[in-house]
């Protein structure tokens, strides 16, 4: 009996550890590759550990391509996206949560249903629109799409859930005291919503940082490239600079992993509520 329950307790661990190692192996391989010399990268049979830690791949990663420029572009787009989203989304969420106007619920459901719209349907007219406005190769198509595009429904949904959890007495009493809606919003509700804002800010940043298709469409001029489309420059006609490429991919990923470790709970909450990433 004792032995059986011990086995029962260990079995899930064994499977989780086995699969966990399989999940971690690519990370390990990535990191170890970045510290190897060219000879050690291309060797058969594979050699897991570099004989000495070499930083050349990282040096090449940032010097072979305009890595700093791409990083700047990526950071600026991501931060501008976040700045707008955390101002706009809670306003809309407040309207859908605290102001009981006619047709509110219908509009809210309607907003959520727009999440099913494939981006391919709007992609071409938006490109034409931004082209006509002379905004191609600038940050704005990506930033404005983050503010007002389909993603707004996710963010509003998320914050509305949070607002709905704030006791009604709090806002009702202010209303009886004659405070305007905007005052109630900005002085009572918004300060309480910081955790929810942090969550959507985080996800907005993550999405902007990782976005590939958007930059591919809107950024043709190399000066405006982000990291996700700039990395392909390590790939040449006949050869791939795997060492520097893996180092660059590591540098591209590390900020996000660090963010995750700082605010792990926010990530898990956000995903559990909306399923977005």
């Amino acid at each position, binding site marked *: 009996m004792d032995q059986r329950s011990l086995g029962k307790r260990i079995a*899930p661990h064994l*499977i*989780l550890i086995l*699969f*966990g190692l399989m*999940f*971690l*192996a*690519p990370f390990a391989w*990535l990191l170890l590759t970045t510290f190897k010399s060219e000879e050690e990268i*291309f060797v058969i*049979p*594979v050699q897991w550990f570099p004989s000495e830690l070499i930083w050349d791949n990282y040096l090449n990663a940032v010097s072979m391509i305009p890595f700093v420029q791409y990083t700047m572009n990526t950071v600026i787009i991501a931060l501008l996206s976040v700045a707008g989203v955390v101002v706009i989304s809670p306003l*809309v969420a*407040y*309207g*859908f949560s605290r*102001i*009981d*106007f*006619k047709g509110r619920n219908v509009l809210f459901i309607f*907003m959520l249903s727009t999440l*099913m719209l*494939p*981006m*391919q*349907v*709007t*992609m*071409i*007219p*938006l*490109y*034409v*629109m931004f082209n006509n406005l002379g905004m191609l190769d600038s940050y704005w198509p990506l930033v*404005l799409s983050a*503010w*007002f*595009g*389909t993603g*707004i429904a996710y963010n509003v949904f998320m914050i509305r859930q949070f607002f709905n959890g704030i006791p009604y007495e709090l806002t009702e009493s202010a209303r009886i005291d004659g405070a305007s809606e905007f005052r109630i919003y900005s002085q009572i509700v918004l300060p309480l919503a910081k955790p929810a804002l942090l969550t959507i800010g985080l996800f907005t940043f993550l999405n902007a940082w*990782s976005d*590939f*298709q958007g930059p591919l469409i809107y950024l043709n001029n190399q000066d405006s490239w982000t990291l*996700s*489309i700039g*990395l*392909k420059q390590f790939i040449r006609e006949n050869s791939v600079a795997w060492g520097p*490429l*893996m180092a660059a*991919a590591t540098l591209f*990923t590390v900020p*996000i*992993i660090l963010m*995750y470790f700082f605010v*792990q709970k926010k990530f*898990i909450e956000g*995903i559990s509520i909306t*399923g977005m*990433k």
Partner: protein
Amino acid sequence: MSSLQANTGIKSRERKRLLIGLLFISPWIFGFLVFQLYPIIMSLYYSFTEYNLFNAPEWVGLSNYMEMTKDAKMYQSLYNTIFITIFGFFPQLIYALGIALLLNQSVKGLSIYRTIYFLPTLVPAVASSLLWMWLLNAQYGLINQALGAIGLPEPNWLLDANWTKPSLIFMGFWGTGTTTIMYLAALQEVPKMYYEAASIDGASRWRKFWHITLPAISPMTFFLIIMGLIGSFQYFSQGYVFADSSGQAIGGPSNSILFYAIYLFQNAFVFLKMGYASAMAWLLFVVVLILTLVVFRSSGKWVFYGGDK
């Protein structure tokens, strides 16, 4: 005070509330009009035109749609997309549930395991695709070296048209962390007393899973299938990077990883066939709508919403 006055008082208060409400949600209304409704209408219009960006759109009636019915590459891309939906998305969903079930056994160190399984989803699609291309490298890749060491054949993952889609599917398993976390959240909501009652009745583990767990998490499964189908039909970045970064044309070897969204993108921004690409977008829209509707329709039979917790 007459009732009429009171009535207009209520009405005007209602109108004021409506006005303030609309004011608060106005950023969304603006976004909807400019970033959704207007593009939808224009996209429908473009789909009936020939349009290369430089000349004004020229009305061609249904000819884009007719051309699609004869376009072998379109069928190929549709086939590839359905292939990874059936052999990628659904197995990955089941796999994510499996891991979530293991994590839900209230094992020690849950947060460590959760982090391990979640980390890969944080890696940007481009970075993870490039990493997997390195892992799958036919000569020097870790995976083929491992396969060779135990005497298995070493496929040319990225250049052999038979193996490109499986490559992408393997990589997809690595990125199922989000689904796992969502299933885990759903599993943790299942009331313990259901299992206790079943245990008293002597139900086996399998029966408990089949009759309690699966129905209880069916709303989550429903949500994941809807969102997953929509996402799967828009599969783009990984397939694009795989072909582009292995020095191949868009679509990879024999167009084996030419997915619908990639072919659409190619038509729009490489061939500048904006009209044709718009028609493709509308076909995509209709297919996604029908699939969603079918899943919704069927949901009455297999999705159970528990009353109280």
